[in-house]
């Protein structure tokens, strides 16, 4: 550790010494100076922590050893230096390699450092380890995919009747997936009736309604009919206020009522057991 300032009267800020101290001791960023050809000229504690090399091991080595092999083969390190020299700075996120061979997801900024007369003195390279954030992002994406899978089940509830409860809002990607599932299920189960329940759809807008209408016309092309169920008061109000015309679609407020419609269309009837027999 460099020596600590011994008195508060020490004018810490504004001196180049204290600035050097900051760069050398900051642990969360790897702050590295490169010479104009890309050889490491200085190293800090953060760089040692993130990349694994000690200062005496790395100073004088070429900075391409931080990159994965395939990136080196594609000439990425050189390209990045050239871009930084050309544009003044270069920013990138990608996989980099530690001394022990493990990869980490890095956010890198390379800044060209020039003398007053414009000659290139070298590069400043600031690297952050964003592996955790990257993993979190990937986990989130996977989870949202899973949620999407989970939220569009299509179940057969009677011979010839399938039910598809919709939960959450319908964007075009979900519509596509929902449509595929529903239509495939209808064909698989040879069901002429499909109940689409929108009880779990919080709000409806023109786009969602459009997606619903599209799905329903695709189902009709197959030769099946859709009953839209679970139309809540708020949804009914919104539909009318938005001027969305669903008049050629059978709609019901509850799934139970929809099921009755479906059974009726299939010429089926639910009757009470005769208790006397």
């Amino acid at each position: 550790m460099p020596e600590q300032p011994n008195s508060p009267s020490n004018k810490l800020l504004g001196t180049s010494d204290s600035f050097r101290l900051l760069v050398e001791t900051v642990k969360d960023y790897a702050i590295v100076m490169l010479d104009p050809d890309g050889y490491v000229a200085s190293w800090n504690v953060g760089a040692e922590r993130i990349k694994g090399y000690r200062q005496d091991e790395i100073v004088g080595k070429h900075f391409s050893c931080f990159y994965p092999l395939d990136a080196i083969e594609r000439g990425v390190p050189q390209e990045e230096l050239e871009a930084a020299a050309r544009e003044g700075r270069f920013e990138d996120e990608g996989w980099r390699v530690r001394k022990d061979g493990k990869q980490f997801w890095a956010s890198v900024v390379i800044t060209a450092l020039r003398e007053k007369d414009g000659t290139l003195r070298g590069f400043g390279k600031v690297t952050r380890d964003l592996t955790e954030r990257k993993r979190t992002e990937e986990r989130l994406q996977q989870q949202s995919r899973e949620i999407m899978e989970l939220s569009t089940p299509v179940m057969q509830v009677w011979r010839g009747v399938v039910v598809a409860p919709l939960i959450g809002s319908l964007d075009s990607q979900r519509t596509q997936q929902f449509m595929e599932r529903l239509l495939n299920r209808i064909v698989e189960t040879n069901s002429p009736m499909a109940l689409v329940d929108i009880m779990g759809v919080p709000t409806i807008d023109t786009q969602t309604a459009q997606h619903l209408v599209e799905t329903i016309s695709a189902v009709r092309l197959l030769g099946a009919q859709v009953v839209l169920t679970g139309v809540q008061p708020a949804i009914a109000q919104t539909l009318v206020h938005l001027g969305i015309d669903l008049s050629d679609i059978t709609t019901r407020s509850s799934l139970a009522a929809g099921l009755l419609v479906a059974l009726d269309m299939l010429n089926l009837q639910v009757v009470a057991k005769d208790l006397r027999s």
Partner: protein
Amino acid sequence: MAHEDISVIRLRDLLLVTVPPDPDDQTISVLQERVLDAMARQDCRGLVLDISTVQILDSFFARTVAETVQMVSLMGGRTVLAGMRASVAITATQLGLTMGKALTALDVDRAFDLLGALPPKGDGYE
């Protein structure tokens, strides 16, 4: 595509035509003619178009089918499209291809049920 492949089968008072898997424009036109010929020769009250093997549907196909439905209707018959594949239905919807006033059914069996259950055309049903 050999046009001899297209057969128009008469079953009771209905016509059954199976559309080949990958029909070109000419095949579709020939199909339309044969269907109308058969409607004229044999007094039929309906047509079932089995499209369960069709994998790709283009705008020409869609338009010809819609026209055929109208023509058959003018000759006093109803048309049912039977067995459209899920993927075809999705594509057709996304491309905005409608099949005119064609009735649809999940398969040929249900198409016959449907036509059998409907009263003959011209009895004030439409």
